[in-house]
């Protein structure tokens, strides 16, 4: 699990350009699926048929993207100008200075600024250096509109905990992949939707769900843990199990879904927490109100230092998320 997490975290999958992550996942899911396809927006839809006579269709959602930076201008002397996309828009631009970047085609670079004082760093003052000395040289590798992500290695800090950029998507995708592998024979049809563009507002989720016509969606999500020295009112801790989503900015999870997930967690002896946070949107909320409506719940993996260059998760939380997901799929009867 740790190796998979590190591999996923180090892949370059900025929001909207998830191809590298998708290719990695597609190779891993194919042996366990009856049908694998990629839709117009780039969602990876993996279906495993059920054996039941009166089976339903369950949708498991895991987003593949990470926040990114877009090249919005290429200077004549070969420097790039960047615009943050997704959750990096809320980061102070000063935080990006000195970071290393990678493009999905492997091009690498570093971010600098023309500001003298960290307090004066604006997005407009940022630039990236990929070693090119002219616009023409850049254009052979990078075009305006191309996306890059931060480029940092991931590693285990101890037996259970892993640090890396994009650990959120890695934890979620690893959990979905592992759940699919562990399913065995199941009654219901299951489609795992590895979605795109979560970081810019869950734009992949609805198109992914549209063709599936599911009866229930279980969204795998992340939640910021409040168990560090940073002041926070969150009670969520890492290592204490997945957080069953109750309420966020865009949804109030239906009581029968909440009780179902809590009952299954207790029956399986899986530690869980409850996720009540109005700061965060979720794909669950979008799906709940999608088309003619879709019953939806979510399990959130606790993540420290969320949306930073170095997020931290506890592998035991991911394993517990897998256990609860597999059990919920097998015993789904809502």
């Amino acid at each position, binding site marked *: 699990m740790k190796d998979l997490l590190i591999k996923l975290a180090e892949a370059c999958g900025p929001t*909207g350009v998830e191809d590298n992550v998708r290719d990695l996942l597609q190779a891993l899911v194919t042996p366990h699926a009856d049908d694998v396809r990629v839709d*117009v927006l780039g969602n990876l839809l993996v279906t495993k048929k059920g054996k039941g006579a009166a089976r339903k269709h369950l949708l498991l959602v895991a987003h593949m993207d990470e926040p990114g930076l877009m090249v919005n*201008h290429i200077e004549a002397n070969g420097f790039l100008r960047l*615009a*943050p996309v997704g959750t990096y828009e809320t980061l102070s631009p000063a935080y990006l200075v000195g970071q290393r970047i990678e493009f999905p085609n492997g091009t690498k670079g570093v971010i600098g600024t023309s500001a003298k004082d960290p307090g004066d760093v604006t997005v407009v003052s940022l630039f990236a250096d990929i070693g090119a000395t002219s616009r023409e040289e850049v254009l052979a590798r990078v075009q305006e*509109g191309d996306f890059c992500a931060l480029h940092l290695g991931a590693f285990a800090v101890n037996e259970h905990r892993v640090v890396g950029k994009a650990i959120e998507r890695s934890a979620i995708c690893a959990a979905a992949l592992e759940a699919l592998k562990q399913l065995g024979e199941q009654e219901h049809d299951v489609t795992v939707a590895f979605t795109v563009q979560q970081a810019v507002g869950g*734009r992949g989720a609805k198109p992914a769900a549209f063709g599936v016509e599911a009866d229930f969606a279980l969204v795998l999500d992340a939640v910021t843990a409040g168990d560090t020295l940073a002041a926070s009112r969150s009670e969520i801790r890492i290592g204490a199990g997945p957080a069953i989503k109750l309420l966020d900015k865009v949804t109030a999870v239906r009581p029968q879904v909440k009780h179902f997930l809590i009952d299954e967690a207790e029956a399986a002896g899986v530690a869980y927490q409850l996720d009540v946070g109005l700061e965060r949107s979720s794909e669950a909320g979008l799906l709940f109100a999608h088309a003619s409506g879709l019953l939806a719940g979510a399990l959130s993996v606790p993540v420290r230092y969320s949306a930073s260059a170095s997020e931290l998760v506890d592998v035991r939380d991911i394993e517990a998320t897998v256990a609860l997901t597999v059990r919920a799929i097998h015993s789904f009867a809502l």
Partner: protein
Amino acid sequence: MLLKRLTEATGPSGFEDEIRQVIYEEIRDHVDRVYTDSMGNLIAEKDGTGLGPKVMLCAHMDEVSLMISYIEEDGLLRFRHIGGIDDRVLLAKPVLIGEGRIPGVIGSLPAHLTSSSDREKPVPLDRLRIDIGASTREEALALVCPGDWAVFATQYEPFGQGLAKSKSFDDRVGCAVLVEACKQEYQMPVVFAFTVQEEIGLRGAAPVAYRVKPDLALVLEGTLASDIPGTVVHAQATALGQGPALSLVDSSSIHSRKLRHHLIEVAQAQNIPYQVRNTTAGGNDAGRIHTVHEGVMTCTMSVPCRYIHAPSQVISLDDYNNTVRLTVEFLRSVERGGLER
């Protein structure tokens, strides 16, 4: 003149009746079918003579404008925005109110009656009034009523080196591109969608896209151009005279890279100038279109527009003509099977 007819027609968000009628009259002889949906979107379809992907071109009919909210005892009108308008551009501007086009002026105090600290900041909306020449509420009520809308009184006018001004190039210039493209014949089905209520939350586009179910969509817009003194090149969004602007990312969409690259190939092959829109600010109907059904390949192409969302918006007529050319050549290329999807 098409741009004059389209830009001088009125069409505040939610009140697009007049502009819809103008567009209807321009296109009805060129399409197989034209109808209005329950929201007021105008949808025109050309069936084409052969198979091919169904392409939707989209431009919004509505314009940023004002709504009368209250009539004072002294006959002056309070008002609110319809769509995003920077209050700084309102002061001392002429407006036209409602279908009767009642003239009015957004009033201002002479400088000698304002304090030096007041002059340092914009006059807030709650201190602005429209003066229609009435001296009592009754006199005013004979002409206007709360709920009436007002548009800027600017007339279309070419000026300078190939530029033109109007009150509503955002997005009547996009509507004009659709009207021109509509006059050509295509082998594949092409749908021309003129949407409502874009300026107040992209409300018209998703229902149209659900109905039309296009294989690919191109949104035609008038967009930000900040090519004015004091703005660094990489923060200008677009610049006048450099051709149609292709969107990269904005607050509502990550525009289809594949579609953009195809547009660039067509532009290069046909020797049509183009530029990329280098800001992530703003949003448009593409944001609603690309997520309908199982997803739609969508991109935006815009005519750069200085002083957007203000009374006198300015475009380059060369940019407009090149946007028409690139739109038609794009359709020709898709028709020939040039776009791999």
